[in-house]
């Protein structure tokens, strides 16, 4: 087992889940409660990674954010290097890629909170922020936890973008899924099998926990 790759994947997934937990909550709040008529466009943008081939994102990161293009040049002048072949690059790609896996369960959780309870909190003088942290968040904890766990798990399973922009650097961009690919290509089926089995069990465990906790939250497209 390539523990370096396992640890790298865990680090990446934990960073993604952590950042999306912070950044995803306000987005999900807005998506749930906004009455803006063009809101569906924002929802579509957030959901795009669900259907977008990883190659598209990989291509844009490699070509668009490469040092020959303006966005890439800007990035380079701010951070001193371009995105491909770095942990930061994988992080940016994974954040984009896992966004719907966090925001949609968050949003589904918020929607399940009884509107009357929220309004009661407001009329009793609590601010919107206070209402969010003391009423909405506790009542939608299952959705929030599901979103964090799903984005974590989805990042562990990411492959296409990492293959395209990672450059396969041990300890930096060689994640567990890339390691399995390498093992298969090199004909080390025993090693590939061991790592694959671990990932299979992990994925099954994660989904079992989520379905077991609340099956309704998984239905991210549900609308009342």
């Amino acid at each position, binding site marked *: 087992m390539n523990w370096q790759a396992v640890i790298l994947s865990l680090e990446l997934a934990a960073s993604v889940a952590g950042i999306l937990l912070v950044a995803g909550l306000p987005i999900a709040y807005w998506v749930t409660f906004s009455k803006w008529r063009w*809101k569906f466009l924002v929802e579509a943008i957030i959901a795009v990674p669900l259907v977008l081939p990883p190659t598209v994102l990989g291509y844009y990161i*490699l070509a668009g954010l*490469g*040092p020959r293009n303006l966005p890439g040049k800007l990035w380079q002048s701010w951070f001193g290097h371009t995105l491909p*072949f770095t942990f930061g690059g994988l992080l940016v790609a994974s954040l984009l890629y896992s966004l719907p896996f966090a925001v949609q369960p968050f949003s589904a959780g918020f929607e399940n909170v009884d509107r009357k309870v929220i309004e009661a909190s407001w009329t009793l003088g609590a601010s919107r922020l206070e209402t969010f942290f003391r009423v909405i968040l506790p009542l939608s904890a299952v959705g929030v936890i599901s979103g964090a766990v799903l984005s974590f798990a989805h990042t562990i399973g990411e492959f296409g973008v990492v293959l395209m922009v990672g*450059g*396969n650097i041990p300890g930096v961009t060689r994640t567990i899924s890339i390691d399995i690919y390498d093992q298969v290509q090199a*004909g080390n089926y025993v090693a590939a099998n061991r790592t694959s089995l671990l990932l299979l069990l992990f994925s099954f465990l994660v989904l079992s926990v989520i379905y077991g906790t609340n099956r309704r939250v998984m239905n991210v497209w549900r609308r009342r």
Partner: protein
Amino acid sequence: MNRSGKLNFRTLGLLSAVLLAMSVPLEIAATGYPVQSPAPGSCGTLTIAAAADLSEVMNTIAADFRAKTGCVVRLSTGSSGNFLSQIENGAPFDLFFSADFAYPKKLESEGLAVAGSTYLYAIGKIVLWVRNDSRLDVSKGLEALRDPAIQQLAIANPQHAPYGRAAEQALRNAGVYDALKDRLVLGENISQAAQFVESGNANAGILALSSALSGELKKKGHYSVIPQNLYSPLDQGAVIMRSSKNPQAAEKFLASLQSPETRELLAQYGFALPPLGAN
């Protein structure tokens, strides 16, 4: 549903109607594309797996072959190691053009390829390649890589790509491997390594001469050939699969590689050629 919800649905409906309308001309264009129908007296379809260094030259060879014989050729290109494991797991190829000699031999010994059919079709060369806007002086050879400005050097993955192995070997023999090993970025195959440098994301790359001589790379950069004594010869072998449904066409294709035109073409793409009758 509230009022704004209904509005959204109407807008969405409009949007999908527009998208649908846009997709119609595309579909017509797609059917207008020349369909690969076999010529009269055809020999059916030949499915070929070819190492990534062959991508461009193989397209030409396949087109010539089709014009001469009427065989339809379906070409897949990628990492030789990947094809090896796909074939070991039942991939339906008729012919496999590896970037090395060991993989075809392995398939023979495993009984997956026709015994004794491995054919030495070309000998690959590696080059140090940079973009034209690079300040690196490639004429100094691999010594040029001692330049601290090199942040990333792209090579193919030595674990399963023969060109990656040759690159690593050359770096070691030139005595620069240890200095560079933390700055290597590994392409899944030699074409991806090429694309890492071509896009400017890596500063330099050790690529196949055949890649350096094709398409975009030819326009965008320059190279110096890495001396042959720094790495073991990249003998490249092709084999016919035992599971091939069309072994006659496969044999015909291998035989066509002996023709002067094809040999000339391979030479143009930077391959050294085994003497005629070496196989």
